[in-house]
């Protein structure tokens, strides 16, 4: 029982990180219909900011804030430079553009920072753990769970109450009509990218605080997980992205925890098999977006 609880805490922490990542993809997708595969590079940028701050002796709290800010700025710039010129092009064009942005950034990191992974100095506190109700919980797990809750609460408030948030929801529902109502396309799309940068930045701080290093290619793995979670949840649906992230986290942790040891090698295919199985019954995802009208055939 205690083991189950402990693993559940692990699953919530991992699922929370996946949820933040998937949300970052979903925010942009819901408005532009673009799956931004350069989302992972926003995390890498945040990671490098953490690394340089560590070298410069900046306290971790400030370094984390700077890293998140850098990811937001990079996201907005990414939209202005790369995606704005192709905004009215087909979905495939934008998808290929996002791959191109991702590769260009990776090469820039390799050539101007380092091809090798660089250590990130982290406060000792993040490696500690505390006992809570008989469970041993790592501080970075608690940080992941708290950060997820705060971000979800903020996002909920932002989308329901804040002007830009309401505009984004309107744009997600019907961009043409939203523009007729006087909503500026550039502002809404910039805000969506800034928001996805914020989510990428928070996820990057959590991600890097576990692995303690950054390398030019580190964005690929998380963006892949986020993509799976977003599809599972229902592309373009924010609530779906959160649900997808948590379900993916639970599947991964429970399989790693409770699959018999001679089956462990097949953990990943089994996990993805479960995702496919769920999709068979919910082809539009767990909580589909209203605008996504894929049909079961």
């Amino acid at each position, binding site marked *: 029982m205690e083991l189950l609880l402990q693993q559940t805490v692990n699953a919530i922490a991992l699922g929370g990180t996946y949820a933040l990542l998937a949300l970052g993809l979903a925010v942009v997708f819901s408005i532009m219909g673009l799956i931004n595969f350069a989302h992972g590079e926003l995390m890498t940028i945040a990671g490098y900011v953490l690394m340089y701050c560590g070298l410069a002796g900046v306290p971790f709290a400030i370094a984390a804030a700077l890293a998140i800010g850098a990811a937001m700025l990079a996201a907005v710039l990414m939209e202005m430079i790369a995606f704005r010129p192709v905004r009215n092009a087909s979905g495939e064009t934008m998808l290929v553009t996002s791959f191109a942005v991702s590769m260009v950034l990776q090469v820039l990191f390799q050539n101007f920072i380092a091809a090798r*992974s660089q250590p990130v100095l982290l406060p000792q506190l993040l490696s500690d753990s505390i006992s809570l109700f008989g469970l041993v919980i*790592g501080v970075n797990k608690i940080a992941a769970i708290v950060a997820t809750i705060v971000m979800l609460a903020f996002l909920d408030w932002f989308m329901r109450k804040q002007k830009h948030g309401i505009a984004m929801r309107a744009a997600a529902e019907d961009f043409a009509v939203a523009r007729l109502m006087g909503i500026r396309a550039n502002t809404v799309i910039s805000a969506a990218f800034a928001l996805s940068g914020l989510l990428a930045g928070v996820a990057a701080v959590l991600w890097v605080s576990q692995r303690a290093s950054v390398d030019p290619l580190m964005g690929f793995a998380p963006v892949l997980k986020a993509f799976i979670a977003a599809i599972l949840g229902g592309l373009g649906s924010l609530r779906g992205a959160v649900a997808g992230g948590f379900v993916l986290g639970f599947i991964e942790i429970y399989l790693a925890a409770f699959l018999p040891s001679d089956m462990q090698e097949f953990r990943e295919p089994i996990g993805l098999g479960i995702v496919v199985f769920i999709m068979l019954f919910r082809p539009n995802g767990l909580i589909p977006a209203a605008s996504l009208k894929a049909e079961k055939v």
Partner: protein
Amino acid sequence: MKKALFLTSLLALSALSQPVLAEDLKIGLATAQTGGLAPYDAPVIEGVNIAVDEINAAGGIDGKYKIDLIDKDVRSDAAQTSIATQELVDQQVSVLVLPCDADPALAAISIVAAAEIPAISTCASSPTLPLVGGDYMFANFPGDNVQATVSAEWAWGEGYKSAYIIYSPDAQYTTLPLYFKEVFGKLGGDILGEDTYSIGQQDFSAIATRIAALDPQPDVIMTAAFEPDFPSLLKALRAAGVKSQMIGSDGIDSPTTFSLGDVVEGTVFTTAGFATEGSPMEAFNKKYKEVTGKETQTVFNAVGYDLIKVIEAAVKEAGSTDPKALRDAIANLENVQGATSLITYKGTNGMPVRQVSLVRVTGGDRELIGQPSPTADLVPAPRMQ
């Protein structure tokens, strides 16, 4: 007929247009300067360049053969490795240098074998590499089975009786703990369990929780995980309250490991060399600092120097730059003094006999435990994954 004539004349022309550099030794480097293997290949090539500059400044090998490096980045990709290798073969290199990991190195095998050019992997440590690779494939690092024997014998000697291994079936190298399991078992130790992970896996909390729930706790945990997996694994274990002795292998001989602070303190790993006082490696490290202006951060710099020393010795032995003669010369080298160790290929299948250093992380730095020779009977046979 006309066509044949045209072709032959074209061939003759292209042969003529190749500059005749009989006194140059062309070495083709098909290594990973970017991507997942760059943390290992990039420092090796730094060491290679230092050795080559040193030799060329002295007038070349034996005062005759200047070394000409042809450099290609294979981006840690198996397909790209075979493409780059083919290009280098077409440029008629005498020796090939392949990436650090056995898997991309093996991707180039058919080309290497057909061209009959000796190939040396920068730092692959899987003893299966020359087995699969055949006569023309050589390694440049202490084998995984040898490293595992050294660390298992050390653990047993320290009085540790039980162990837990964490390995990944994704690559040859990351299955090193299976050798450890074999040797530790032969010595009489208990293996309490094993876990697998995927390379690049971010979260190790499920494994850490399972190990933390074991009663009794294992005395040692052995893994060949390297970054970014190793820091995540180690932090997850310590955060879950696991206090067992960690044993790693050469993949964690990197700056990230030494920057992890308290969690990594006391971790022991095997590697290719250690700069003891008055050792060739200390001399190399000094030279590295003179050339680059910074301290060397990993043993892989010195391993690159070793690689060129091996080629130098082979060219001296063969007295030519003919690839076949060089292959035979490398296969018969004995006690070549490299920066890290004496290196012997004679009597092996291409996996060199080299010294293994056992290092402990102390206060964010390396501390040498010893450079023991493994008991020959205990070294496991190479195992195909």
